[in-house]
């Protein structure tokens, strides 16, 4: 079998590419601990002052809070609506399942910036621009495809006979879903929910057109402050995000064998 293992050249190239993928992460983390406002290699002086600046700045705190509320809220709504819809489609309870799937997945295909401007115009027309609820609905639209995709994939992995067995054993439709179907698709849904959460957390192209001044999210804040130049407190808040992401990713891998669902 030795013959079919990748050789030294390919392995080294591959490892360099994997390293390339981590470079911005490393650089951001170094910059956030560095004394100087421009990062040098090797960094000169270590400090936590940028973190202090972030954690005492109301603008950052509010943005983090907004982002979390939005991500948790939209993921929860997407989960409920998306799983219900996926179940109806998968069990062919309604005709036209293929067309319906395409519609539910469409927000993934249409460029985000186009969705953003479309919603901007629309909510300006109906006079709801700047409302937090508009932002929440918009995030449901862009996150729901991830839930639908993982729900449909998980459902297709279930033996239909297992649900029938529950029915014959005396469970009604809802009990069957609660006791049998839902537990079986849960690992896939956790992965889908994670994608949904991340998508909401990092969205700029839709959010930037809709967020009112009080609803600024963290990525919008970073995005706009970068136009003013490189600021080490941006690096500090980015480092916090990197650490949070790493923890969530490892936890998800632990719980569900996450990498199988990507």
């Amino acid at each position, binding site marked *: 079998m030795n*013959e*079919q*293992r990748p050789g030294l050249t390919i*392995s080294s190239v*591959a490892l360099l*590419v*994997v390293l*390339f*993928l*981590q*470079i*911005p*992460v490393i*650089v*951001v983390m170094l*910059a956030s601990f560095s004394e100087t406002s*421009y*990062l*040098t*290699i090797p960094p000169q002086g270590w400090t936590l002052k940028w973190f202090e600046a972030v954690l005492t700045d109301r603008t950052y705190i509010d943005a983090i809070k907004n982002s979390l509320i939005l991500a948790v809220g939209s993921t929860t709504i997407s989960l409920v*609506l998306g799983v*219900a*819809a996926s179940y*109806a489609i998968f*069990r062919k*309870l309604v005709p036209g399942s293929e067309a*319906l799937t395409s519609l*539910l997945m*469409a*927000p993934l295909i*249409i*460029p*985000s*910036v*186009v*969705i953003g*401007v*479309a*919603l*901007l115009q*629309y909510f300006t027309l109906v006079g709801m621009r700047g409302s937090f609820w508009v932002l929440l609905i918009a995030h*449901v*639209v862009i996150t*729901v495809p991830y839930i639908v995709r993982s729900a449909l994939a998980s459902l297709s992995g279930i033996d239909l006979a297992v649900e029938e067995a529950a029915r014959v054993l005396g469970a009604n*439709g809802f009990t069957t879903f609660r006791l049998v179907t839902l537990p079986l698709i849960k690992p896939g849904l956790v992965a889908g929910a994670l994608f949904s959460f991340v998508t909401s*957390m*990092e969205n*700029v*192209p839709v959010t*930037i057109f809709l967020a009112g001044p009080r609803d600024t999210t963290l990525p919008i804040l970073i*995005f706009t402050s*970068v136009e003013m130049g*490189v600021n080490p407190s941006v*690096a500090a808040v980015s480092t916090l*995000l*990197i650490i949070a*992401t790493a923890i*969530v990713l490892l936890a998800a891998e632990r719980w569900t064998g996450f*990498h199988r669902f*990507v």
Partner: protein
Amino acid sequence: MKSLRTGALLLSPLLFVLLAAFVVPLLLLVPTSFQEYRPGQGIATDVWTLQNFVRIGADEFYREVVLRTIGLGIAVTLSCLLLGYPVAYLIVRGNPRWRLPLTLLVIFPLMLNLVVRSFGWIVLLTNRGVVNNLLIDIGLIERPLRLMFNMTGLMIGLTHIYLPFMVLMLVAALQNVPRDVESAAATLGSSRFHIFRAVTLPLTAPGIISGSILVFVLTISALVTPRMLGGPTYQVMATLIYDEFMLLLDWPSGSALSFALAIATIFIIWISSRMTKRWAGLA
């Protein structure tokens, strides 16, 4: 027909949300794109014009932005493919013990906030950034290289952003290549390179195509990275749409451009899904 009622009940909340906050807003872009924008006066709703669409091809500035976007898409796709294939190959065919850590290292940047990743590249690529400082320190250059606000910066940044997608697609494709087929080629006297060229590569072609389509579509519709690394002057289609809606307030022109971008992505995805279906039919 009890099942139909249950189904409608389960589907309608989401369908309502999508209709009200996705389908209708998108459709409303269409009439806007045929209206006329008069600087200083706003949008003239009484005139219908094709001017906004004609301009995309006719106006030199617009044409340059469109061509740049497409060129960027192609360049980023190719570099993702070239860099991604070895990684996918190592993950699938390498030591199984490396598989999980490597996969997680590939997924990790994908999970990381796009703005943060782009910011990382700014720290690296600006005039007084890490790369330029390093090159000056070791004496390779005297003045900082211009690595941002141009094609180089965008290519590096976008390749980094979309490489994980390509790797994951290629991993899936490579996993579907039966090892026995490669072994069979080896017993028939193929060299390693020939096995790759004659067996592995053609069998992963569907994955290569769908990965490339994905990266291309994502690249041409990207807003955040091009804006952060390209600044307000080095424009692509998405950043131009952004400016037309937020700064210039020329909504008709922005709508036409949005419309063109959306149609292009839908068309590419439609073509590719037809192609993959045909590939699946062959296999």
